[in-house]
Every structure is written in C-alpha cells, then in structure tokens.
C-alpha cells in the first residue's frame, strides 16, 4: 500500500465518521456537569472520612488531629521544594510522610483511590485560594 493510498483511505474513514456523529464532543449539559461535580464531591467526602479516620494509620492518630479542616496543608503551594526531603515533591509525597510518621502507618501509592480522595478533600477545603507553586 502506497503512502498516498493510506492517506486517501484515512480521509475517507474520517469523512464517514463526521457524517455518522452528528453531536460533537465538547457539547455537555448542566446535568452532565452536575454528575461530574457529584463524582468529585464523592471523592471529597471519602477523603474527609479518611482524614478523620483513626484507622488510616496504625496508632489511632488521625490527620485532622493536627490539621482541622485540612488547614496548614497548603495544597496550593505544591509541587515545592521540601527542605527536609531535599527536593521538589508533589503533595502526595508529603501526605505519605505524614502517614509514615505521625500516623505510624503504611504509605499509599500515588494512584491509590484513597490517596486521590485525600488530595480531593485537602484541595477542596482550600478552594478559592490562588495557586502559589513553590511557596514556603
């Protein structure tokens, strides 16, 4: 198959798709937005439960004990240079530091749904605050 033929067939396929799909991808309704927001808020809610849970770590200490309403976590400043770790890190690595130390627990994988929920909650409590990456 020559290069020309390949491009020709590709164009044909593309034009077929356009005629079949009458609705383009970036149209969404208020109901869609509501549903997506709900998905996010479910994650926030799960995050809040983990934040106040005495069983996230092993010693009964909960994140909220030192960080009521996730205050003093500064999600808007990450990634940033964490002097005690000696490099630029994202928020989830700092969360794992807390899991290991004050909570005497086991760190979570970056893509663990629990880790994502914790970050959703922490960031939600900080909504409206401007981004200041790197700020100490």
């Amino acid at each position, binding site marked *: 198959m020559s290069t020309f033929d390949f491009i020709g067939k590709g164009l044909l396929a593309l034009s077929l798709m356009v005629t079949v799909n009458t609705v383009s991808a970036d149209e969404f309704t208020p109901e869609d937005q509501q549903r997506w927001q709900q998905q996010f808020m479910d994650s926030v809610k799960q995050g809040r439960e983990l934040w*106040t849970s005495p069983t996230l770590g092993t*010693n*009964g*200490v909960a994140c*909220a*004990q*030192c*960080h*009521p*309403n996730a*205050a*003093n976590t*500064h999600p808007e400043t990450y990634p940033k240079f964490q002097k*005690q770790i000696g490099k630029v890190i994202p928020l989830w690595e700092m969360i794992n*530091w*807390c899991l290991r*130390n*004050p909570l005497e627990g086991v760190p979570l994988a970056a893509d663990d749904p629990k880790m994502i929920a914790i970050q959703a909650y922490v960031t939600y*409590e*900080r*909504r*409206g*605050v401007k981004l200041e990456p790197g700020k100490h």
Partner: protein
Amino acid sequence: MNDINRSRRDFLRTGGALALGASLPISLVELAFAESSQNFTFAYISDAHIQHIKGNRFVRNWDMGLQRAVAEVNLLTPKPDFVMFGGDLAQLGSKEELDHGAEIMSALKHDVRYVMGEHDYYLDLGAYWEQLFGPQYYSFDHKGVHFIVLNSIRTYDDWTFKRWPTAEQRMLEMAGLDNPNGSPFMVGEEQRKWLKEDLAKVTKTTPLVVFSHSPLQKIYKGWNFWTEDAEQIQALLKAYKKVSVIYGHVHQIQYNQIGNISFNSVMATAWPWPYPQAYAQAEQYLPKLTVPMNRADPFFERDATGWQFINVANGNVDLNFTLYSNKDRVVRFDKAKKQPQDVEYQVDKARIDPQSHY
C-alpha cells in the same frame, strides 16, 4: 524590678545532677525577686492528649511531649510555687489515658492543680477525673492573688444528655476539633452563680487569675476557640482592677486585652494547631495584638509544642514560653500600655517570616 535572667551556668549547675539535664536545650531561669515579696512563679503544662492505642500501648509522640515538660519543669530554679495542668490530659477521656497521664505527671516535684478539658470530660462527664484530681471548678488564694479554676468546656444540656446513643460516641463527636456535630463550649449557669458568690468574698483590688480550658473570649466558633457565655463571665470580672485569664485548648500562642482583662493562651505538649486564619473558608477573630507562634515544622516532632512558666509580678502575669525547637518567647504585661506584649516580636518590623501563617 522583677527581672528574669537566663543563665546557662545556673542551668548546668542544676541540671548536672540529672543525667538528662545537660542535654536539654532549655536555658534555665533565675528569678530575681528584688522588690516585692509577693512576686512568685508557677509552671503551666497543658494539652498532653495522652492517647491509648490498646493494652499497654499509648501514642509515643504525645507521651514524649508530656514527659519532656515534666522533666524540664522539675529543673526550674528557683522552684515554682506550684504547677497548673491546663486540660486535655487524655485524648478520649478513658481511665487508661487519665491513669497514664496522672502517672507521668506524678514525677513532678510540685503541687499540681488541674483544669478540665473537653477530651477529659465527655466520656463520663468528669467522674473519673474528679476521683483523680478533685472538683471540676474551685478557687484558692496564693500570696495575695485569688485564683479561680472553671470548667469552661460544658455545653447545652440537649447536646450532652439527649443527642448521642452512647457516651463513647459523645466523646468522639466532641473530640473532633472541626467536627460540625460538635457544640459550643460554655461555663454555664451553675458555675456563673458559683463564681458570683466566690467573687463576693474578694476585694476589688485583689489580683484575679482565672484558669479555663477554652478562651473565655470569642475567636473562632468552628474549632471551639470560643466560649458561648464569654461576655457574661467577663462582666463578672469587670469590677476588679487586675484580671488575667489563662487558657489552653488552642495549642498556640494567643493574647489579648479586653478592658481590664488580660488573656493569655498556653502551648500544648502534644501538637500545635493552625491559626484559624489558615482555614480559607472561615471568618475568625484572632486578636490583633497576638504575634503568632512560629509555624510548625512537622519534621521535628516536638516543634511548636512546649510548656511555660508564669511570673506573677505584682498581680500581672508574664508568660515565658519554653519551646522545644524554636527560640523561647516572652509575653509580658506592659504597665504603660496596659496590655500583654511580646518582649521581642511585638512591633511589625520585629516579626519574622515563620510567624506569618496562611
């Protein structure tokens, strides 16, 4: 003059007797009672939050905070007249926690008096605490000063008696500082009546020092940095010339002056709390006078925790904060300005970056 001379040499002389003494990073304090025989000191330890895990295991971090404060208070020279504990000895009010806390406190070589915190109270409404430490509110006199201890962490009867199926759940609901199911603290009618009667016996020129767990002023309701009937208590204290309120609960340095009343908070031995201004979704009223403590560095376990000794100079209180990983702070009553002021950091120019919280 009532001067406090920090003397490394004296510290070593005293501390040398103890194996751990020389390694403790406190500067020992020598108090010069040059003018008034009425001047004296007492030490203040607060918010230890001893937390039971299970069996004979307790959260090591909080144990270490209280043990360190006790060891350091024992090194004070000259010896303070007594020690106050400002409440929240336990985390969830259990016998195990109160017993373990009392055991650590028993190493103190001083008389100790206790203030009730919400973490001590809401499991059995103070019943076991009373067996260990005595009545929930009381007064005493010492060297011309009238001291009053209030249980300021009570709340509405409906919440206490009708809302929760078990005592354990009631304790858990109140233990979460930011829990929307909590309820505002208050001294309540019974104690206000008692306070009025107690004060009736005290002359208006007698200096008063009031110990409470919550602030007796309104700072931020969402975290109970708040006492619902604060204004009513303030009104009862209004007629007295020198009044100081010293409170725990907030795990941070706060101070304020409202009319004739000076307010000072004390540090926790367990962990520091953010200033309410760090919660972006809340309105709060941190007193303008307050120069905040340094922001905590969580990598140092004892950072932004500590204890204090309090110098009662002619009826006003000066707070000397012994901070484990930061420079010590002194908040002293300024006689000209008639308000508490930080000795080093009060003016804007003198503040340092770690004292800005966001």
